[in-house]
């Protein structure tokens, strides 16, 4: 399956890029497994927020082909 991964704010700084396109093999791939693929050296930061297709979710979420996954820090708008 093909997944688009986006990083915002200090997560983009930390990753050194704004986006990844990832091809994954396997029947079931979770956000946690996707993170290990895009960031093999670093554990998922504890306070990071996760969105799949622009809805908040958590690292156990199973992904589908074509999903857009975003990793970002706590939000500070308003």
């Amino acid at each position, binding site marked *: 399956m093909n997944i688009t991964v986006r990083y*915002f*704010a200090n997560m983009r700084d930390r990753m050194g890029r704004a986006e990844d396109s990832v091809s994954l093999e396997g029947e079931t791939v979770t956000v946690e497994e996707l993170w290990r693929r895009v960031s093999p050296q670093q554990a998922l930061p504890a306070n990071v927020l996760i969105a799949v297709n*622009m809805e908040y979710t958590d690292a156990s979420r199973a992904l589908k082909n074509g999903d857009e996954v975003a990793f*970002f820090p706590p*939000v*500070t*708008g*308003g």
Partner: protein
Amino acid sequence: MKVIVQEGPFDPYQVTRDYEAQSLPVGKHGAVVTFVGTMRDFNDGHNVSAMFLEHYPGMTERHIEDVCQEAADKWDVIDALVLHRHGDISVSEPIVLVAVWSAHRAHAFDACRYIINYLKERAPFWKRESTAQGQRWVEHNTEDPGVNSQGTKQKSA
């Protein structure tokens, strides 16, 4: 209800008047409550000279719309308007406008507060401040203690 996320300055009072003239039925509301968030020149003990506001296009609008709909489900809201900036922002400029029209003030006050508080909690925006020490991402918003019998904390004498 309308949600706008835009780059560049705006006049929140003109926007409110224009929206009311164009979109509100005549004579039905008895209250309009507006919240305008503006940029301070200080935060977390540092002087702040400028700010950049990043957002997640699409997700941001969707989550503000959800918060407005939740407010309309909880209170008697005739209409609501939210305008939020992204991009470069200068000191004292408006960042966000929330305007709520209702027949009565209590519903307008409560719905307006609900919208700004949950917008700050859920809408994907991130502030990066410029200070004398360089640029830094803001890590958390200040909390609104909410309305209770004591009200908000009184300023010290």
